[in-house]
């Protein structure tokens, strides 16, 4: 990968709270703390994996970065431009460079539009091409994602799940973005199709020097595609490290439990594994525990974990952990 060390995206203390209204006069009675103060950066050309279980705030993080939600507080810098305070035409210009691929290839394509209209729409909206030129660009884009350009007049329902996801990828590529947020792009697909899409995303990254934020709950696929990985739990990042470091030596008890819960397609290796089975469920993000978010399910929690929130600190070079006891697990 021809990446350098230039930081493409920087997220500082990002907070996204969704208000809860109750009663006749719709007074705000609380907030769902979907994202509660997270910081990370992404270098140009790299893939950052963002993993966590449902409701941990990983998709909200993606959407807030693209300013699809107005963040409650915090900053997002893309190519050193502050996105949070960007408005109107300036924001529109930035949006060209940042695109998204969605989870559900059935719901994210308009069933009444042809493939050509779907893939060509961003070109039209952003006035980068007209008429004949759109048709040519669309045909080229379909070729890039390995779809037959002759299918351009077909509707989404005429395609299989994997083909639809290719249409979604072509649409994301239309404006030649430098950054793509892949929000669970393969979770809705069959096992044999998942590898096709992941391979396609990797080829495109190499070809166009793309930068990915790859949001997923499948830790095996994230290990395969990412260079660095961040683990989220209940609105906060609990651990962030280079891919190999994180999987070889997870320092946060949640990451350890999460990794040990992933089934391995190998009965011999699976039987030998040490399992940490977490008790109970994830608490509600509307009323998260005090101090460390994970303490209610943590096997090593102590009194101080309830009193203060552990700082997200660099325990080893490039390895960030939000746990008071991270040092215990360094081998």
């Amino acid at each position, binding site marked *: 990968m021809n990446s350098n060390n230039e930081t493409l995206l920087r997220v500082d203390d990002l907070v996204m709270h969704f208000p809860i209204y109750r009663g006749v006069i719709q007074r705000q009675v609380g907030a769902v703390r979907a994202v509660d103060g997270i910081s990370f950066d992404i270098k140009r050309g790299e893939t950052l994996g963002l993993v966590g279980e449902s409701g941990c705030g990983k998709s909200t993080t993606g959407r807030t970065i693209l300013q699809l939600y107005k963040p409650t507080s915090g900053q997002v810098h893309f190519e050193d431009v502050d996105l949070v305070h960007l408005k109107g035409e300036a924001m529109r210009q930035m949006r060209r460079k940042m695109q998204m691929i969605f989870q559900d290839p059935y719901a994210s394509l308009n069933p009444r539009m042809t493939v050509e209209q779907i893939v060509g729409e961003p070109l039209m909206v952003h006035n980068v091409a007209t008429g004949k030129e759109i048709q040519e660009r669309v045909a080229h884009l379909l070729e890039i994602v390995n779809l037959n350009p002759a299918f351009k007049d077909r509707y989404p329902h005429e395609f299989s799940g994997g083909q639809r996801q290719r249409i979604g990828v072509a649409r994301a590529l239309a404006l030649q973005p430098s950054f793509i947020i892949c929000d669970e792009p393969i979770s809705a697909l069959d096992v044999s199709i998942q590898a096709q899409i992941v391979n396609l995303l990797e080829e495109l990254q190499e070809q166009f020097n793309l930068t990915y934020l790859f949001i997923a709950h499948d830790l095996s696929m994230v290990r395969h595609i990412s260079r660095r990985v961040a683990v989220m739990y209940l609105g906060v990042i609990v651990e962030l490290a280079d891919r190999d470091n994180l999987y070889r030596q997870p320092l946060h008890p949640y990451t350890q439990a999460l990794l040990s819960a992933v089934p391995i397609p190998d009965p011999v290796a699976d039987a030998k594994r040490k399992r940490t089975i977490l008790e109970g*469920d994830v608490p509600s993000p509307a009323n998260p525990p005090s101090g460390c978010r994970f303490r209610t399910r943590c096997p090593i929690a102590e009194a101080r974990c309830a009193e203060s929130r552990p700082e997200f600190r660099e325990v080893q070079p490039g390895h960030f952990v939000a746990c008071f006891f991270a040092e215990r697990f360094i081998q």
Partner: protein
Amino acid sequence: MPELLLDVQGLETTFKTSEGTVHAVNGVSFGLKEGETLGVVGESGCGKSVTMLSVLGLIASPPGKLNAGKAFFSGQDLISMKKEEIRQVRGAQIGMIFQDPMTSLNPVLTIGRQLEEPLMLHIGMTKQQASERAAELLSMVGIPNAKDRLKDYPHQYSGGMRQRVMIAMALSCTPQILIADEPTTALDVTIQAQIMDLVKRLRDELGMAIIWITHDLGVVAGIAQRVLVMYGGYIIEEASVKDLFANPSHPYTVGLLGSLPRVDEKERGKLYSIEGSPPVLYQKPNYCPFAPRCRWVMERCWKENPVLEPVSPEHRIACWVDIKTGRPR
């Protein structure tokens, strides 16, 4: 040969759709031994769920139609049974859990009411007895304050807890077979680990046989003793779990395993991908249904559909090719 608990022979099920008749299950035969856990793997549309629903008489007809097959359970053919008779077997001797615990529970009835119903219906317990047993069952599946929580409605339970309720319900009449259709697919991995752990514990305590349907080869590796791999409405490979993962022999199984990255494995390079997508069969094929996607495909594969044949005593595949040599078997 030990007596089979469930013996399915030559099952064929089709569905009428506006596009034509879909051949969902095309002659599936398998056996289930007492106390055994059988994994059934395959992608969506491969016929794994339809096979089990056919056995249980749960295929809606029309559009579905069971064209052929027998399923012997303690000497009786489930498929030729009357509706009333099979209803006595379902829920009593054969328990079931499904993928989505929210849609399988009635949202307007309390958990207690739903747990008590099969106990009163199948075992003839009184309301009082059923209520006590229901509380026992809930605590058996690891739900704290079971007695109080009987009064709750499904929406007051989390996804993992709802699936625990489903398991409690399926086990309430101590069935000999538990059929679990993708029971952990809608759950997060840490909750999936809890549920798999629970089912394994209950299996050892109660000694029931389990048929566990899933698309996840990792889950199968963790729970099953023997595995059926399905594709296009056929069983294409059958082996013990160890043998299947150590010596996968059907090109489809090999491809699936190759396309799965593992958490415990370093760099793999490019993932192996099976081109194309799973078929929808409007005709019973007279060729191998995997041939269009197979990289070992030969002339014969287009002319004859292979049948399951042994490669070793406990390991059978439906394939004309020996993938180790690339030549005909």
